[in-house]
């Protein structure tokens, strides 16, 4: 059945399509601008003002060579990889342990643990007490200071708990009768049956670690331990004391753009393939535990 469209509807659809193209343009243009600027001829770029429709010739790729050879960026990348891999693994382990406990019916202390966890969603010690804790634990200038304080995200725990609860109790019960330990049940039954949820949580935790810079900026002094985002922040802030060698480079401006491209590219490149997991994560997070 084909319904004839009213003129108002057609006008709306035309407007809507144009508006959507406008949205696409304003999301994509800034990224395009940065990419194009990153290999433009530096002097013409420096004199340029306003929108940049194409790169200035002759193209100058030197900034990228400098970026890939910059010691702070290389060590930053390695540190970030360590934190993303190690941190996410620990996040998943601890979140699973908590979620597994909360998903089981019966234990008397379950309510107590639940309240203990939920309170932390609404109240925390704040910046200085947390900082003092890390200091007193002797974690200053270590990667643990970045990984440990955020081991468990409550929303993630609730998401995983909900997913565990969807697994029939009979599976746990028969495994217990067969002599399996709770640890085995968690690793052999619960986690394999919740792969999709785990995938979502891995993405969220990993992206969080990849983007994080603030806790590193307050807990780390040693430049060699800086994660990528903090290294980038230090390099981009030209008033920073670390930036001396960098500003002196003739590619300084190009390098700014190049760094933006290089550090964003990995996530931007893989995100479209993982889009459905991210979407799923948003929806899971909105489901009440």
């Amino acid at each position: 059945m084909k319904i004839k469209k009213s003129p108002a509807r057609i006008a709306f659809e035309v407007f809507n399509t144009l508006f959507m193209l406008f949205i696409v343009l304003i999301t994509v243009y800034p990224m395009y601008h940065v990419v194009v600027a990153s290999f433009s001829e530096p002097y013409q770029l420096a004199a340029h003002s306003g929108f940049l429709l194409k790169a200035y010739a002759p193209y100058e790729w030197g900034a990228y060579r400098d970026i890939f050879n910059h010691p702070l960026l290389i060590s930053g990348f390695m540190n970030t990889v360590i934190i993303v891999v190690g941190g996410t693994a620990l996040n998943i382990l601890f979140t699973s342990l908590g979620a597994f406990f909360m998903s089981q019916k019966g234990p008397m202390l379950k309510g107590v643990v639940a309240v203990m966890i939920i309170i932390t969603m609404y109240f925390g010690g704040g910046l200085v007490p947390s900082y003092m804790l890390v200091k007193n634990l002797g974690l200053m200038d270590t990667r643990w200071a970045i990984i440990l304080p955020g081991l468990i995200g409550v929303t993630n725990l609730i998401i995983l708990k909900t997913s565990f609860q969807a697994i029939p109790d009979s599976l746990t019960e028969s495994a217990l009768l067969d002599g399996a330990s709770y640890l085995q049940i968690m690793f052999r039954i619960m986690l394999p049956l919740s792969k999709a949820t785990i995938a979502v949580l891995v993405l969220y935790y990993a992206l969080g670690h990849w983007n994080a810079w603030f806790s590193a900026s307050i807990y780390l002094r040693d430049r060699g331990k800086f994660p990528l985002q903090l290294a980038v922040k230090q390099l981009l802030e030209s008033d920073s004391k670390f930036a001396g060698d960098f500003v002196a480079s003739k590619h300084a401006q190009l390098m700014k753009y190049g760094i933006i491209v290089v550090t964003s590219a990995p996530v931007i490149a893989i995100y479209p393939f993982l889009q459905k997991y991210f979407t799923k994560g948003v929806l899971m997070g909105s489901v009440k535990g």
Partner: protein
Amino acid sequence: MLKKRIKKDFSRYGGLYLLVIPVVVYYIIFHYIPMGGVLMAFEDFVPRRGIFKSDWVGLQNFITFFKSYDIWRLIRNTLRISLTNLIFGFPAPVILALLINEINNKYFKKFVQTCSYLPHFISMVILCAMVKEFVSTNGFVTQFLVDWFNIEKVSLLINKDYYVPVHVISGIWAEIGFGSIIYLAALSGIDMALYDAAAIDGAGRFKQVLHVTLPGIAPTVIIKLLLAIGGIMGVGHEKIILLYNEAIYETSDVISTYVYRKGLVSGEYSFSTAVGLFNSVINFALIMVANKISAKVSEVSLW
């Protein structure tokens, strides 16, 4: 009797309790010890003497804060940023979702969605670096405003009047697409039969949106709105620290950035903790009030 029950509980669930011990230890160390640490708000805390041996000063830190010139500036800036964000940033993804929902072509729809989600995946450090470039003296945003609105050709971030718009608009740019996901899901959950029924009753497309679509996504919108209202005094520090500078503290300094600067930059530990505690008490109260209101106006509640 109770003893017997406890014994039975432990013999049955002992293995389970063992598994949750690391989690409980984590919460005690990294959440409850810092919560106890707020006591330093009532002390003249000296790290060397520790929390138990520092001198108690009662409410002195709070009084200093309430009497300071800074408090009104901080509250005003915090409210200005979050209210501007509530007015412009909150409806933006709802409207985008409604418009995306009206796209007929499946591929075009997917294309628009994928593009609009992209900025969400740019890290805060990079996002702010981009914003700073674009609003710098030669940036395209500045140039555009110079050409069309005749403003002075200087970086927008040295003029205090432009901080809030730059903050809010860049936030909308980054999150409008990703924020629309949840509303799109709510939209796709609306029963098609309702549209058919409305059409039979003579409702045109616009009337259908008004009477079917909007009520359909209202619960989601209300929950999100409540969360936003609950967080109105909780403007985060990360983005502001990356964007602001001393010349524009007048409009850009909020409670959380002040807590950061006082506490970790100038080392006024007790004072900073007091300001932070004042802020979290208000945040907590706001969340409670927001939830109470929602429970009254509808069955939608945060819990």
